Every structure is written in C-alpha cells, then in structure tokens.
C-alpha cells in the first residue's frame, strides 16, 4: 500500500511538474506535419531499400508518419501505377519513379517546382532535372541512383604481350582498352573462343536492347526520333548501329543466348569470367570486384563508354527518383518527404554503397571519399566522364510502347530472320503507325 501510494504520489508530482513546465514555457511547438500520414509506393530491392532506413528520422522531425503500402521492382510498380490510374485509386502520396517511365503518367504526378524551393532544385545535376521535366512540369526529384553505362573489362587480357602482338598483326593498330565501338568489335571477335569465352555481350530484349541500340545510333551521329517523335532510326546511322550488333552475333563473339539476356544475366556472365568486355551499369561495380560473388574480382578495369563513328560516346542514362501524386491530400508533407529522401545527406548515405549521386556536391564528396581506394576511384572517374555526355530517353509517353515494337525487329535482324534494312523498315513503320494512331503528329 505504501509502495502504491508512493508510486501514485510520484506520478502526481511528475504530472504537476509537466503542467508547471507547460505553464512556464507555453505549449510545446507542434511538429510541422503532426498527425499526417503519407502513403508511399516505393521501389524494392537491396540496392534501394537502405535509404528507407532514414524515413524514421523524417517522421521524428516532422511528426508525420510514412505508411509504405507497396514495395516492388519498377516493372511491377509500373503496372500497379497504370492500374491505379485506371481505377482512380491515386490518393496515395509518394511514388518511386524512373526517368524512362515517368513520361507515361502525365496525369498521375504533380509539379514539384511549386512545392520545392528553386535553390534546392538548383543543387541537382541540371541534366537530370531537365530529364525529370515533362511539359514544363518537374515530376520527380532524382535520388542517388543515377545510371549510365561504362565499359568493364578483364585487366589481365591487356597485360598479355603475345596477345597484344597478335592483335596488332591482325588489325594493324595497337592493342589497348578500347575507346571506340569499332575497337570493341575487333577485340570482341579477336577474344572470342565459344563456348568457353566471349568477347562481349549485350542486353538482347525488351526496353534494354532498344536502349543499347538508341545510344549506339546517337554515337553514330543519328537519332531515334525526330523532333515530332516520328521514327528517325531507319537511317544510315541507324543501320550502322544495328549492323554492329548483327556482326558480333554472326561472329559468335557474344553468347548465343544474348538475345534472351537482361541485366542479371549480363552481370552474372561477366562475373563468371567468361566475358572480356562488358558495357554495364554502376550498380555492378561492387559485385564484380567482390571475391565472394565474382571470379574476376581484383581483375576488373573500368573505362568510359566508347565512342561511335561520330566521335560521340554512348550514354543512354536514367535515374530513379520520387514523385508526389496530384491527388495527394497533403502535398506539402509529401514534398517534404521527397526533399528529405533526395537531400545531400540521403544521397551521401545512398552513394556510399556504390550508386551514383544526382547532386553536384555529392559527386565531389564521393570522389573525395574514394581517393584512397584505387578501384572505386577508377569506377567513379569512368562513370563521371561518361555521365558528362549522357542523355535520357526521348520524352514521349509512348517510349515503352515504341520499344516493344522496335525490339522484336532488332532481334529479327540479329538472328537473321530479316536483313538490317527489312528489320528497321518494319520497326519504323510500326512506330509510325503507333504515333499516327495516338495522334502524336
């Protein structure tokens, strides 16, 4: 009883003390978004989810709560967003977005330039901000998941004097890490020893092969679409670009199954030590050099993406980011969360694991951090150089649909079902029909 009384009296004293404190200093200032719940649909996967561990910090600072209602890869999220638009269930607030997908959702997301201060937007790499802007609307803020591809290679190949001599005798120029796509082709054919070893490989289906073809067309001096989004790839530059893929396949310098490969197949292929040269994304840099995961660990070199015959580097790029829906009830709170997840601190946390940042200051920071790590420095230097001339996908809502029309034709040329001319003519006609049907021009 005594204990109970003591407890009770202590509680009474504590309550009185708090009351006194409130009287003395006035009510504690309410957090900015007290009681607000932000529903979010976010991209999942180990590479992306580390950032979400910072969300509780934002919740503590603002008083809001984040309820993640969906977490999936981007292809699945894309389908879910389209279903949400169709069903009108778009009152959730924050969604993961990607520069290659963003143009497909013209009504889903709000203009962030009304919600994010101009000086904050100015701190991002402006090429990314441009690629995140559609019809004058800034639809997403980029996170530190900027993607452009550089050339990974097995270093010891270039240390073999006999190989260098044989190469020079055959092709008439010195053997070195390739700087052009013609050199990549020569070397890939030279290295190939199927089925044990291949010169290179490429993504062979879906949007992936069209992206690779797109950047090759640009490197050859051409373009995929005209300014009115009519197809422009059925050109001499487009034909040269496709011929590069066809020649490598015919020479058996790439794995026979490459037309069925996507990113995981390519990454695992290079890590298995059976590929000499591999154009790939920055996210693989750590994996390739991890002895537990990769046979080529310790033997990986990284060079900037090679150039095409027009002297232009390939540089198909994309980036992940966050958007706020048009139907979100509390856009200010949602924009605050997006701002937090893409701020300097968040980008430092995210890029520490390898991915490339999209803020200028964080690029400098990660370069400084990597100066004692030669491999990381080499990776950053190669990607920084490639990023300088990188370009995003054409800003049309029919990008994905156009790629679905183009890629089977590219595959048909590679597998010799059609000639390069026939394949590009058919692809061009199909894209033209699509654009006409959709009233694009």
């Amino acid at each position: 009883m005594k204990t109970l009384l003591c407890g009770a009296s202590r509680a009474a004293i504590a309550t009185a003390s708090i009351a006194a404190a409130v009287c003395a200093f006035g009510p504690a200032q309410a957090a900015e978004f007290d009681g607000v719940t932000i529903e979010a649909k976010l991209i999942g996967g180990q590479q992306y989810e580390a950032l979400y561990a910072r969300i509780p910090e934002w919740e503590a600072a603002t008083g809001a709560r984040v309820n993640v209602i969906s977490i999936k890869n981007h292809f699945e999220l894309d389908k879910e967003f389209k279903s949400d638009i169709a069903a009108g269930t778009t009152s959730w607030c924050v969604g993961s977005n990607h520069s290659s997908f963003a143009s497909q959702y013209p009504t889903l997301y709000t203009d962030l330039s009304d919600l994010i201060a101009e000086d904050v937007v100015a701190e991002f790499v402006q090429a990314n901000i441009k690629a995140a802007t559609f019809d004058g609307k800034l639809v997403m803020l980029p996170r530190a998941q900027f993607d452009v591809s550089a050339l990974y290679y097995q270093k010891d190949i270039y240390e073999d004097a006999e190989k260098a001599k044989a190469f020079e005798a055959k092709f008439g120029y010195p053997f070195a890490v390739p700087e052009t796509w013609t050199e990549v082709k020569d070397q890939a054919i030279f290295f190939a020893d199927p089925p044990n070893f291949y010169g290179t490989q490429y993504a062979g289906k879906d949007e992936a092969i069209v992206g690779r073809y797109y950047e090759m067309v640009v490197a050859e001096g051409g373009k995929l679409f005209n300014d009115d989004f009519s197809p422009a790839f059925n050109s001499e530059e487009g034909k040269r670009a496709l011929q590069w893929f066809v020649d490598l396949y015919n020479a058996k310098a790439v794995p026979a199954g490459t037309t069925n490969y996507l990113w995981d197949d390519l990454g695992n292929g290079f890590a298995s030590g059976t590929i000499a040269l591999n154009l790939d994304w920055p996210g693989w840099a750590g994996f390739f050099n991890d002895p537990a995961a990769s046979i080529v660990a310790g033997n990986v070199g990284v060079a900037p993406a090679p150039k095409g015959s027009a002297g232009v580097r390939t540089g198909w790029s994309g980036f992940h980011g966050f958007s706020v829906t048009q139907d979100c009830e509390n856009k200010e709170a949602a924009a605050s969360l997006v701002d937090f997840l893409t701020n300097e601190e968040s980008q430092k946390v995210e890029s520490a694991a390898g991915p490339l940042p999209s803020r200028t200051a964080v690029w400098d920071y990660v370069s400084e951090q990597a100066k004692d790590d030669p491999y990381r420095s080499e990776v950053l230097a190669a990607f920084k150089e490639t990023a300088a001339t990188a370009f995003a996908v054409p800003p049309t809502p029919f990008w994905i649909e156009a790629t679905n029309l183009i890629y089977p034709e590219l595959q048909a040329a590679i597998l010799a079902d059609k000639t390069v001319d026939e394949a590009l003519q058919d692809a061009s006609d199909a894209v033209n029909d699509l654009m006409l049907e959709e009233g694009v021009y």
Partner: protein
Amino acid sequence: MGLHHPTSPIIRLKCMELFHADPRDILMKRLKLPPWLVLLMPAIIILSAVVLIPLLLSLYSSFTSYRLTRPDSLFNWIGTFNYEKAVTDAKFWAAFGRTVLLLAVALNLEMLLGLSLALMISKVTRGQRALRTMMMFPMMFSPILVGFQFKFIFNDNVGLVNNALQSLGVTDTAIPWLVDGKLAMFSIIFAEVWTSTSVFGILILAGLYAIPRDPLEAAKVDGCTPFQSFRFVTLPFLMPFIYIAMAIRSLDVARAYDIVQIMTNGGPARRTELLWTLIGRTGYVDARMGYANAMGYVSIFLAIFFTIYFFKKLQSARKELGMGV
C-alpha cells in the same frame, strides 16, 4: 392534434403480420419473385459482381480506345477498330498459330507420357503410394518457379544442359536452347510437359483403378494379346478420363503465360510469342487495354472450341461404354 393520426386496426394488423413474417416471404410478396429465383439470388449477385459485370465491361472496353493511363479514353467509342486491327494483324495470327501448336504438341505428349506413367505405376505392387506422391511433385511448384528453373537449365552459357553436353563431349558448341526458333518452342513445351504430365497421370490412374476386372479376364480367356487387351478393353475404358484431362489441360495451355513469360517473354524476334504473352504485354505494359481485350475475346473462341470438342469426345466415349450422356 393534427400531428397525431392513430393507425387503423387493419394497418396495424398488416404491420403485425409483416413483423412476424419470414423476410423471404416479404421479398417474394413485394417483388413478386418466384421462389427459385429468390433462392438463386445470392449466386446470381456474386456471379454478376465477379464474372458478368467485369466480362461486360471488358467487352465494352474492347470497342473503345481504352488506355490504362488515360481513364477518360474508356468513353471513346471506336466501334470494331480493335477487332479489325487484331484480325488483320499477322503477328496476332502467328501468336494464335503458335498457341494452337503448343496446345496440340503439349497435350498429346502429356497424354502419352501420363498414360505410360499411370500404366507403370498401376503395375507396381510395393511403394505405389510413394510413387503416386512423387509423380505429383512437379505439380506442386509454382509455374513462375518452373519458368526460372528451366530458364537456368536451358541457359546457353551457364545452363545445366549445355554444360552437361559439353562435359560429356556430345557437343563443343553452346546450343542456344532459348533462342533458336525450334529449340525455344521445344524448351517451353518441355517445361510445360514436365510440370503437367502428372495431371494426366493421376486422372488416368484413377481410370485404371475403376476398370472392372471381368472384361479384362474375358479378353485373356478369348486369347487376346496384352496389347489387344489394352487397345480394345483398357483404352476405351480410359477414354472418358483422358478427355476430362484433355479438357482441363487445354484450357490451361490455351492461357499459357507464366512459364513462357519467364523463359523467353515471347521472344526472341517473336519466335515464342503466344496469345497471352502478346495480350499481357499489350494490356499491362503498353497500357492498351481496349485492344488487349479485343484480342482476348478473339482468343476466347480458341478455348471455347477446344472445350466443346473435348466434351463432345467425352460424350461419345461415354456412350460407347454404355455410360449414357
């Protein structure tokens, strides 16, 4: 005063009747619905909500330019444009033809293998239960996982089959199982057959258990060879079971999607494109749901055709056995 109107005794009586009456009686009396309709009403409401309304809505949308990303396009009536586009599209008919080919080859192979398995298991005297359970293992895997499993097995570079063939000295080349036009279809059919042969096996085994012994013994007494006994006694008894399995599996294969989506996604160069990989991509990736629904409705005829065909066969097989229709 004027606010209070005492109710008449007749009204009060009616109210009391209604109060004590069964609610179903009230419904039937008020709406004058026949009892059978009232009894069927829950089923009708549920079926309407989950089948009929979505079916009608998708049929309607097939006459519009409906895009998932533009909900207002649901009201953009374009008549039979989507149907005309589908039936004049060579890619659609190529996918249709491939689906029929897959159906014909996979069903017949599954039937033959399922029949062989069932006959062998029926002869086993010890451990038959364990064998039956083992036979069903492939059915227990999700088709998505089966797709991933065979995608890896048939990978040209790091796949199990090529590595085995190369190690055994059978070949020194990387066979492009999932790329070559014929081999890619073969690989998909292999995966389908692996995962579903046991459906035939189990149903035919059930048929074998149900066969009366007398006709078989009579055949033996009449001097029939084992093959003649099988051909003229066992097989006719099994046919109803085979047709049931065929009808079930034809619907399954006609809507083949998951295994193909994972293994080849209809490629490369549309070499393994089936109806539902084409329709799925058009509807959910390209977001052209109106066009996808039109293709879906044309494709449904395929499923209806095979269902009617196999049920007719089933009926005639039952008639032959004197089992009635």
